């Protein structure tokens, strides 16, 4: 019941988490997001999107062992 995934924090999310990545446990992205927001309440102020294994996802998704979830604040390139 505990799927282990790697969470990557970028931009403002990385500053709030105070680290670039960490390992967490969750069976789907909704559960994962809840845990992240619980652990880092300030993350609520960041309008982030998620990438699952480098692909932006628009809806909640189940997670597999060793999936990579990236927390992506609005892009600011250029």
């Amino acid at each position, binding site marked *: 019941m505990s799927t282990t995934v790697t969470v*990557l924090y*970028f931009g403002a999310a990385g500053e709030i988490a105070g680290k670039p990545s960490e390992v967490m446990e969750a069976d789907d992205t909704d559960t994962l997001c809840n845990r992240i927001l619980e652990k880092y309440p300030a993350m609520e102020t960041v309008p982030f999107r998620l990438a699952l294994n*480098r*692909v932006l996802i628009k809806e909640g998704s189940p997670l597999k062992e060793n999936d990579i979830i990236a927390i992506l604040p609005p*892009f*600011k*390139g*250029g």
Partner: protein
Amino acid sequence: MKNRYLVGGPITPLLISEMMTLGNDDVGAGAVSIFIGKVRDDEINGKRVKAIEYSAYNDMAEKEANEIIKTVMMAFSDVRKIFFVHSTGTVRAGEVSLFIMVTAGHRDHATRACRHIIEMLKERLPVWKKELF
């Protein structure tokens, strides 16, 4: 993983000169459109920007950049070559953080594709910035 689209620190005049020689041998390319993005010394809340620190999600940037090129080449059939690089790390005010070059047979697709790439990169390239004062 080596990323063709990201370069550490500012994009130097030397690198720009080198990139501008790419595609030089293509005598069917009558138009070259270039965009250079530079860090501005903007004033934010009364403080002057000295530099911007860029960070990127490297693996995803590579994938997105490849897709952007594919999409733009399909949309603008007269385009012959597309090159671009974006800085990561610290780039000071006045220095270059983005370089885009598009070659095409004629001006119309060269200039429009170049502009479209700017917008696509802003929208899709996983890059973040932090102002340093």
